[in-house]
Each structure stands twice: as structure tokens, then as C-alpha cells.
């Protein structure tokens, strides 16, 4: 039997995953937890073969950070990221960490067991791209990578000077990016931009939560 740890903070989704696992005769549930920071603890006694990991979990713990720790210490444990957050950088980071598969809970129609079977067989299954979202008048595909980086930083509430320094650009270049973002979306100011972008999950500044996972 393949032993599965479910890390999901939404009770309905967690129960759904538990239900699916319980219906299988190949997989068994080790535990279903809502806090990704505790996932490495569950791996300590070698009970876990596969983790279904959400990204935004209880106690502001980030599933990608937990996955990174687990992959570092226990590379044989398979990790599938299961998220409904279309944050543009998650996909890239998951690949970098060495996460085995990536599943957008709401958009991928593939069979759940097919996904985990293939992952357990050693395949890496990733969606081609992040889901397309609308931010104001603009589609998420309309933004450049640099604009998305700027958008992510303004979530932090940093000043123009601070953002410019962090992204290695001049303040005037930053202002140009901000102006383009506002023109594309039709939003009046940076606060509205930041709030709406976060609401739809296009950008999430995980730096704010980094301390929680250290």
C-alpha cells in the first residue's frame, strides 16, 4: 500500500481527498493535516510515501517551503502540489524545488488516480501554464514577468524606492511599470491593484510568511 499524507487546510477539500484515498485499494491515508509546517514531522518515522500538499495552509505555512525541506531530507517521498492559487511563480518554484507533480485543483480535469499513479511511477506531471485570470480589464497573460514581479512587491506595502532597490531597477522604471499595470487593468491606484491581484490569487507575496516556515 502506498501511504499518503494529505496537507490541506480547506476542510471540504481535505475530506474529499480523504474520501478518494479511502476508496482506493492501492493507497492508504497516513494522516490529513491542515498545516504544512508539520508535514516534515509526519515524515520523520518513514511512514509516508506520497504527500498531497496544498500551498497556502493553516498557520500561514507555505506548502512549497515544506516540500523543499522534505525533498531535501527525504528525496524518495513523492510530493504533489495541489493548489487552487494561480500565483504565477508557484509553478516555476515547484519545478525548482523538485516537486514531482503539480495539480491545479480547479482546472485540471485529469483523473485524480491517474495523476497520482503516474507520479508514483516516476513521471512529473505539470500543467503547461498557470490558469488565465482577469485582473480588471486585463488578462493575466497580458502582463510581463517584470510587471508581475512589481505587482508582487507592492503587496508588501513597500515604498517605490524599496521596490526599485529589490528588483534592481530605477524608480522611474518602476513608475513606468506601475503606470502600465494601471493602464492595462483600469485600476486607479496601486492599493486597488494589490488588493485585487491578491484576491484572485494572481500574485501572493510569500516573503511575508517566510519567517513562519524557518
Amino acid at each position, binding site marked *: 500500500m502506498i501511504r499518503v499524507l494529505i496537507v490541506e487546510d*480547506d*476542510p*471540504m477539500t481535505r475530506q474529499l481527498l480523504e474520501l478518494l484515498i479511502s476508496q482506493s485499494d492501492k493507497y492508504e491515508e*497516513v*494522516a490529513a*493535516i*491542515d*498545516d504544512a*509546517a*508539520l508535514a*516534515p*514531522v*509526519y515524515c*520523520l*518515522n518513514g*511512514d509516508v510515501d506520497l504527500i498531497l500538499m496544498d500551498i*497556502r495552509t*493553516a*498557520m*500561514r505555512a507555505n506548502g512549497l517551503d515544506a516540500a523543499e525541506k522534505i525533498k531535501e531530507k527525504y528525496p524518495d517521498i513523492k510530493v504533489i502540489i495541489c493548489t487552487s492559487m494561480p500565483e504565477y511563480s508557484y509553478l516555476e518554484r515547484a519545478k525548482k524545488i523538485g516537486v514531482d507533480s503539480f495539480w491545479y485543483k480547479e482546472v485540471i480535469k485529469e483523473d485524480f488516480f491517474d495523476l497520482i499513479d503516474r507520479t508514483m511511477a516516476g513521471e512529473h506531471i505539470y500543467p503547461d501554464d498557470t490558469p488565465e485570470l482577469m485582473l480588471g480589464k486585463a488578462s493575466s497573460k497580458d502582463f510581463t514577468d517584470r510587471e508581475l514581479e512589481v505587482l508582487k512587491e507592492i*503587496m*508588501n*506595502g*513597500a*515604498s517605490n524606492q524599496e521596490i526599485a532597490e529589490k528588483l534592481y531597477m530605477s524608480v522611474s522604471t518602476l513608475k513606468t511599470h506601475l503606470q502600465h499595470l494601471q493602464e492595462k487593468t483600469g485600476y486607479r491606484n496601486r*492599493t486597488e491593484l*494589490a*488588493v485585487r491581484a*491578491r*484576491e484572485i490569487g494572481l500574485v*501572493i*507575496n510569500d516573503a*511575508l*510568511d517566510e*519567517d*513562519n516556515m*524557518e
Partner: protein
Amino acid sequence: MNDVIHPTLSTTGATLGFIVSLTIVLISITIVIYVLMTLMFKNVLRVLGPLALNIIYFQMVYDACGYVSNGRELRSALGRWYVTTTPTARIILATILSIICIHAIYWILKQRREIINTFAIGESFDNLPMGIAFGGENGEVYQSNKIIESICEEFTGEYLLNANDFWRAVQRHARRNDDDITPEETPVIKREDNTYWLFTREKINIGIGEVYEYIAKDVTDEQNLITARNRGLNRLRDINKRLREYQHNVDDTVRREELLAAKMQVHDNMGTSLLTAKMYIKSEHSPVSASQVMQKWRNDLQLLYREGEDEPADAHILRLQDAASHLGIKLELMGELPKDFETLDLVYTGIQECMTNAFQHAKASQMYVAISKTDDEYVVSFSNNGEPVTHPVKEGGGLTILRKKAEKMGATIEYPEEKRFKIIMRIPFVR
């Protein structure tokens, strides 16, 4: 005595005209010489030259007047020439010299305005838009203007007699100032008339020694701009803070919105179920079966049941106890977990780390966490019943990360020299 010239002017009027024109000529020549001396020799000759010439000319006037009025003998050559010349020539000479004289007077007055003396310095100081004073090491005041004197009276109730006392008064006022913009050396002070003044004191070398220069500058406009900017910055900080909080809370908000949507869905489903049940009961040939009606009610009731489920109050403890239990460790927690998220998160991380340690190194079956509070901090101790530990405790990766995280919050970590592994963490209350 044969060369003596006898008077040619016999009338009183002519005598008077002669004396006046002679005087004008003499004064004019004196001034011209004065001007020339000023231009050529500046200091000593400027005074002595005209003085000597004046004595000579005084002698000439005396000579000519004595000759004209009393018939006295003419002794000087110039006096003799002047008396013997024609009246027209005298008038022309007098006119030319008068014009030269007027120009000379104008030039002298102009020169006087341009000459800087003590009074001129004092006057120009008073016209400055700022307060200024110069003082010595011991506080003696060398020069000051009205503005700085009035400020001194406002601050000390006394005239500006000692510059050091004045500067002490400035610094006293700076400390009393409500605004947080008063660095020690360049304080900005709000005066009684609600204007803001910037004060500076600087030691300068003036060639003959060092003096202190005191300057008071009206910076009310700049201060108002700074106040407005600070107000804006505070608003911005507030918005940024709320934005960060929003970032943390948005997941909960979205989840609550989803729950609300689900509740609305349940409400709609209940309506459908009621209609379906009514249709089934009333109609003999109902298109829906009894099992379908039952299934609908079951689904609705299940959703209703889950709707009321909230996260238990002790969710954090249960979460940690479940994790410990998975490792075969019983976690005992004494005291209450902190409410503030940052502190809770640090304690939570401490428990995770000690749990890992209790399992991997101490092979413990029990773990103890005791949380207490003093007046200004939480004191949290983590221990277990596992194998004894050797001191000093070597920090590994996890404990080092825990320490760094604790230090960021101003908390401390210590390892008491006890038989079994123990950590004591002191976390100051978050203000």
C-alpha cells in the same frame, strides 16, 4: 612796499560779493583736494593734506578780507592775483569751482554709503531675514541682530548678554518640543507665534581667531511641508500595514466568502428539495422517486451539518498533539498558548523543533511544554523524558533556525544544565 596794490572795490555790495566768491573758491578747492587726497593717499594724507591747505587758504581769506575791508596790505601772491583780476574772471572761476564742489560733495556722500563701519554692519544685520549673532568661547556677544535678540528674550526672558546661556536655552526648548525633529546640533523649535525656527551654532575662523556663529532661520514653510509629508507618510504606513494584514487574512476572507456562497446554495437546494417533496406527495405519477427525494434531503442535511462546523478553540494544541502522537510521543501542554500570532508562531515552531529532537535524538515518549507569563514576557520551557543530554548543547540546523527566529523578535533561548534536554525561551510581549 611799492608793490602794494590798493583796493579797487569800494562799495559794500562789491566787497560782500568778493568775500562770498572767494569763500566758494576756497571751499571748492579744499573739497577737490580732499577728493584727490582720498583717491591718492587713502588714510593719513586724506586728513592732513586738506588740513594744511585749509590753514594756507584761511590765511589767504584773512589776507584778502583785510585788504578789502580795512585797506590792509596784501601779503600773499594768490590774494594779490585774485584782487587784481577782473570780476567776470572771478565769477567764471567761482562757477566752475562750484560745479566741481557739488560733484565732489555727491561723490563724498556716495563714498560714505559704501564704506562699511560698525554701524553699517549692525544696520545690515538687523535687516537680515534671519537671526544672527557672534560670540566668544566664554559666551561674550560680539555682534547680534534684533531677531536673535528677540528670540533670546522669548526663550530666556533676558537680553542677549551671554551666547552660551542662549544656546543652552535653545537646547532646553528643543527637548521640550513636541515634534520629533530636533537633532541636538540643529534643533527646530516652535515659537510662541507658531513659527518654526532652525538653530545652528558653528565655530568659524575669522582670521584673528575663532568665534561661534549663531544662526536662527525661519523654516515655517519647510516645517509645514514636512508636517504634511509626515502626515502623508503615516497614512501610507497605515495603508501598507493594512495591506500586509489583508495579505495574511485574505485566504480566510475568501474562504468565508465561499462558505457564504455555499450557505446560499444550501438555501436554494432546500427550496428545491421542498418543492420536489411536495410534488412527490401530491402527485400519484411523480417524475421523481422516493429514493431521489430522500437523497436530496440527505445531501442538504449533510451540508447543513457541516455548515455549523467551526475550527475548535484548541485547534493549535490538537494539531500539535496529533503530530506528536504520530511519532509515538505524548505532548503535555501546561498554560495557555499566546494569542498574538507572531508569538504563537514562535512557540509553535519551538514545539515542532523540540518534537523532532525528542523523536530523533532523545527517543522520548513524553514531551512537556510549560507556558507562563511575567509582567513583560512569556517564559516557555520545552523538555522531554528522553535520554540524557551532554552539555553544552550543540545547536544543529533546526535549533539554530529557531534561535534566529527568536532573536528577530527580541526573544532569548537558553539551555539549562539539566540531565535531560530542556530549552527555556523568553519572549517579550509584542507592543
